[in-house]
């Protein structure tokens, strides 16, 4: 396991899974998994379909209860932490969130303030500032009074990320935030996550499909297969032809990215020999 390249701040949150077994009684998706999320860094989880990566993320985000084991935040089982307090620490952007079509962008982003607000409280200046800042950081300030239904897919994704920014958690988990976006918008979203990580020190855990982008944006790369972690570390160490063949059943050439020197996966034509698809 590689040490982070920059030392994380002393108060960076420590999120980990210990002996995590997950799934349904009779069908275990994840079996006895241990993982420590690098504090203050960007962790990317990759793996074939049905490898358990979304399930792992859902458990890290306490959306599902483990069958065995636990997810710990600063050594405390997340399922014992009061919901709203946990929501100030740990945010999740699921794969396909739903928005009422007529709702304005600003008010949707404002929903992210829920864990910070009193039960019946009015909007505070701090809430308003957090929402405005989140919209500015994601470049959607001019869209504030537009309705969600009018937005393009790329704009919508930025609104959801703005909502997570307004929530202002110390750890942000995202499940395939770039799916359905064209390449330019994918890069835009990922650059946004990098800025969030650099500027606010937010720990980021993100599930991605595109291996080249995963390698380029990850400080720490987690490769999953059949509910287990088969490789974990810096992308350059982890993403080898052997790992790709093992985890994805894909014969590929791995070369350094000419721009960033991170690993670039080039599939060999006809090289998908044993796609591990067991949905």
């Amino acid at each position, binding site marked *: 396991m590689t040490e982070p390249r920059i030392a994380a701040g002393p108060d960076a949150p420590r999120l980990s899974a210990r002996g995590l077994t997950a799934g349904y009684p009779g069908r275990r998706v994840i079996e006895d998994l241990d993982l420590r999320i690098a504090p203050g860094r960007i962790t990317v989880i990759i793996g074939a379909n049905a490898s358990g990566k979304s399930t792992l993320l859902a458990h890290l985000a306490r959306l599902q209860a483990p069958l065995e084991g636990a997810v710990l935040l600063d050594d405390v089982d997340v399922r014992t932490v009061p*919901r709203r307090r946990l929501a100030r620490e740990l945010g999740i952007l699921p794969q396909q969130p739903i928005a009422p079509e007529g709702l304005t962008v600003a008010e949707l982003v404002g929903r992210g303030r829920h864990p910070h607000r009193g039960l019946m409280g009015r909007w505070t200046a701090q809430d308003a500032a957090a929402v405005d800042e989140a919209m500015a950081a994601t470049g959607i300030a001019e869209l504030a009074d537009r309705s969600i239904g009018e937005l393009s897919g790329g704009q919508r994704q930025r609104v959801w990320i703005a909502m997570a920014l307004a929530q202002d958690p110390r750890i942000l988990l995202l499940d395939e935030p770039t799916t359905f976006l064209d390449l330019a918008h994918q890069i835009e979203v990922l650059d946004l996550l990098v800025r969030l990580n650099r500027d606010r020190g937010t720990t980021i855990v993100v599930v991605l499909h595109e291996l080249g982008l995963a390698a380029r944006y990850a400080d720490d790369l987690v490769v999953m297969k059949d509910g287990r972690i088969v490789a974990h570390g810096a992308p350059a160490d982890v993403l080898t032809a052997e790992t790709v063949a093992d985890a994805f059943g894909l014969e590929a050439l791995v070369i350094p990215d000419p721009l960033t020197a991170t690993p670039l996966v080039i599939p060999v034509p006809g090289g998908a020999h044993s796609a591990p698809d067991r949905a």
Partner: protein
Amino acid sequence: MSAPAQTGRAPGFLAVHRTTARRATTVTAALAALAFAALCLALVLGDFVMPLGDMLRALFGGGTQIERYIVWQVRMPRAALALLAGAALGLAGALFQTLLRNPLASTDLLGISGGASVGAVYATLVAGWTGAAIAASAFAGAAAVAVVLLLAARTLADGGYRMVLAGVGFAFLSASIVGYLLKRAQEDQAGTVLKWITGSLGATTWEPVVVIGAVLALGAAAAALLARPLQLTELGDPLVRGLGAHPVVVRTATVVVAVLLAASTAAFIGPVSFVALGAAPIARSLVGRGALALPAAALTGGAVLLIADLVGQYAFPGHSVPVGVVTGAVGAPYLLWLLASSKGRRA
């Protein structure tokens, strides 16, 4: 990378929020004025027309004793019941539709009104009960259906599909039970029951007004508390949990409140159709901007039911028509329009 936020014309969060709030306040105030105007009309009309000035004087404690009696004891109970019951139905419908993210979800289509009908028809025809016992039996019937819906609501993660299916099943089941009970009943009894299951406000005393008023006050207070978490549940379960709310608790509480409102109303005035279905989409298309518009939906329901009752009483000279017939006649074209257009959704 897109250009960073320009400071040109970017309305801040508070400005946008205030615009939405102002719009909701304006629409709600206009609906309240409409409801009050309909109330005045209901108090003016009757066996003889009382001039508006006399009516208002009697309404606020002046005028002759006879005028006060006619306004407060003869006309007000029926008008007040229409307003309060309509508001309760409108609120119940808005809660169900938000919960199930479905503009067709309502007490009629979810079988709650059907459960009330079975209860009332059983009480009248089989048990031979009268008066308050019929209302209690109707409430029990609606509550029984609601318990099953509540159990289905635990699995609302599928977007309420199962709850809607269970409800539609109950609606058909109760229609056939009512049909069977009516078939074997005496003719004179069947007449009473038929009037009840159409939905009727006739011969009203203050008693149901007080009961419905109390239930509505409770339901409105609960809805005010639930409004914010309910708004969150619109974003889907994973996000709701991520934001620190408890979707199952919110949904269960919402179903309990909505069922209480719908069942109490059905117990006293029968399963009046359309109001629970139509009030929220109308209110939301007026308020717009994705608002839940719960107060506006309640006021719309109240105004619609009162106006429908006035139409039923006075639009057909010579004989009056039960309010349920009027709302049903309005409801059918409305339902088709809703299915054909997207306006009923949260546009």
